[in-house]
């Protein structure tokens, strides 16, 4: 068979093309950094959690890179400031996916933004892990790429109800929230769940958080015979007013509920420090210290490592830092175990996790369950006992 000059040229071009496509590609992939997009509200009114989360994210990325990276590949954090604005979060998400070409995304860090960005990430099939509480953000059919590594609203609700009914052993409950969408939804869900568990909801109300005097609602709750007041609000002003009114009324009822009741701002809003006692806010086992002032041993180790790395803990919450570390480590581990930054591989790996030991908690995911945080790790904390971002366990836990 005669070989023409055309055959030689075609064959040569084909070989060169094949070489270009097949050989250098793995070399590039192995050297390419693992890009982790972060949708973080670094500025604006909802920036406080981000500041804590980011300390954990940067700490984890630095530690992994200092140890040689993930199978030789460095982690690159691609941070975008969403300012807590869903519109900016949507733009940043699209930019991270199409321009920065990240391999996985951490965030957004608040539900309002996540509601807007989750469908976009689902369409792009980008692995996403976030700490947002709204139930609808996790749906394995609509969003098979989205994973939650913090409790959902209903898990908070379960933990609060468990504390009231099984540890405080009260039966008559008042449920009070603010008039925001969150407050109204949370009060409704909480009341329904309490009733389902056989509790007597003697009073329920949604109160405008700017209402200057909380006496009317507190008086009605007292007259109705409430033995505990469950609070679903992020308004520290409203919460402090309720604590102050309780003191004026000489009523020793306990408050149980939203983590904002342990916010440091309340210290300045209560008329006396004693008004903030007997207030039990949602907390986490990993970030709660016992009567001897000791955290769980793994958390003690983490705090020591953070202190050694000069990570400030006094102005934030430990669970935010720990959550940021866990998110980055979960992404790094998924790349290491699946052997690539392929989206399907990362998602498939996360779906196999059972009690994966993180710092904030143990995470379990499956193809049908993407709420990874375990409800039994949620506890109540003494709201006024903040110490380096950790809290004392509320009474009743052993």
């Amino acid at each position, binding site marked *: 068979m005669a070989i023409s000059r055309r055959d030689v040229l075609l064959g040569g071009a084909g070989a060169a093309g094949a070489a270009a496509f097949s050989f250098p590609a793995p070399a590039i992939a192995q050297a390419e950094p693992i890009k982790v997009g972060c949708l973080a509200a670094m500025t604006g009114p909802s920036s406080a959690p981000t500041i804590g989360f980011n300390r954990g994210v940067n700490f984890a990325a630095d530690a992994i890179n200092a140890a040689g990276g993930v199978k030789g590949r460095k982690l690159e954090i691609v941070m975008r400031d969403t300012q807590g604005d869903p519109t900016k979060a949507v733009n940043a998400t699209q930019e991270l996916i199409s321009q920065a070409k990240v391999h996985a995304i951490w965030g957004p860090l608040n539900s309002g933004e996540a509601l807007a960005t989750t469908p976009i990430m689902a369409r792009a099939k980008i692995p996403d892990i976030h700490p947002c509480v709204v139930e609808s953000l996790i749906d394995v059919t609509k969003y098979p790429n989205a994973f939650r590594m913090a409790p959902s609203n209903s898990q908070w609700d379960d933990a609060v109800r468990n504390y009231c009914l099984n540890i405080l052993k009260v039966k008559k409950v008042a449920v009070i929230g603010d008039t925001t969408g969150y407050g109204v939804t949370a009060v409704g869900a909480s009341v329904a769940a309490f009733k389902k568990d056989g509790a007597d909801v003697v009073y329920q109300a949604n109160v*405008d958080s*700017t209402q200057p005097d909380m006496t009317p609602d507190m008086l009605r709750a007292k007259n109705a015979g409430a033995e505990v007041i469950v609070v679903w609000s992020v308004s520290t*002003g409203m919460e402090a007013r309720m604590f102050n009114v309780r003191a*004026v009324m000489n009523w020793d009822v306990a408050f149980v509920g939203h983590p904002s009741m342990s916010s440091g701002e309340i210290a300045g809003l209560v008329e006396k420090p004693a008004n903030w006692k007997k207030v039990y806010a949602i907390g986490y086992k990993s970030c709660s210290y016992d009567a001897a002032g000791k955290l769980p041993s793994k958390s003690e180790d983490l705090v020591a490592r953070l202190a050694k790395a000069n990570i400030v803990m006094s102005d934030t919450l430990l669970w935010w830092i720990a959550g940021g570390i866990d998110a980055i480590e979960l992404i790094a581990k998924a790349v290491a175990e699946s052997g690539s930054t392929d989206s399907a591989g990362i998602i498939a790996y996360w779906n196999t996790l059972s009690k994966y030991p993180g710092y904030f908690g143990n995470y379990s995911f499956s193809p049908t369950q993407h709420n990874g945080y375990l409800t039994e790790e949620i506890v109540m904390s003494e709201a006024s006992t903040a110490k380096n971002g950790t809290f004392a366990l509320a009474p009743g836990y052993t």
Partner: protein
Amino acid sequence: MLASILASGLAAGAIYALVGVTYNTMFSTSRVMSFTAGQLAMLGGVFGSMFTLKLGMPLLAGFVLTLVCCAIIGIITEFVAVRPVLKSLDQHLYVLSTLAVALMIQQVTAIKWGTEPQPFPRLFGIGSGVWDEKFWLPVVACAITIVGLEYLYRRTLVGRAFVAIAEDNFAARALGLPERNLRVASYALAGVIGGVAGFSGGELLLAFFANGALLNFYGFVPVALGGLGNNRGAIVGGLALGLFQQAANFLVGGIFSSVAVFALFIVVLLAAPQGLFGASTARRV
């Protein structure tokens, strides 16, 4: 329960009344309803907390500085949002311009001061329960302000000039009154009154950026109820509003109290469109 309704109702009502007077003071010399009135009161609480708690200034110095700052904001409002639109009052552009300034004040406060309520210092430490100073201080501040304004308007030359401008702008100018300077002064005075409202109500409302919108809203009700430009009407309307609102809070619950307040507001306006104390003005032709 009655004592609580009276205490908190009169306190909130006095603050609303002072915001109503702030609206009227700005309106009297410019014929402009400036929607910065509530923001001035909000700033009274924020500046008060900043000077006395954050910066640790003595109470009196903090109070005076708060009033000075609020007066300056009032003057800025006149320059930025009122003066440019005075030539076309009939187009009501001031609604847009004063609302824009109000939103700017609120956003800047949120960014610089924070979006969470901050504590306001206990001023004198007098009283407890329903006699706590946080309830009676706004009432006392309101009474002193009204007496002061009555003195200003009736006994001083400047006050009479204000009244002249309010009565008939053109005639006052024809008589040689410095209308523009008096208008600037009235905006400064409105700033001071708003500052007094916020400072005296700081213990009740806390130093919170979101109070501005709330006070804009509830401060406008007594103005409408009492008749535009009528300070006595604003005082009576404000106190009545506070009492009715607190009674509704106690009797039907907070979530329905706003509905009750505005239902009554609409009914009153339907019955007396010029306000309970207002009179339809005759125009000489």
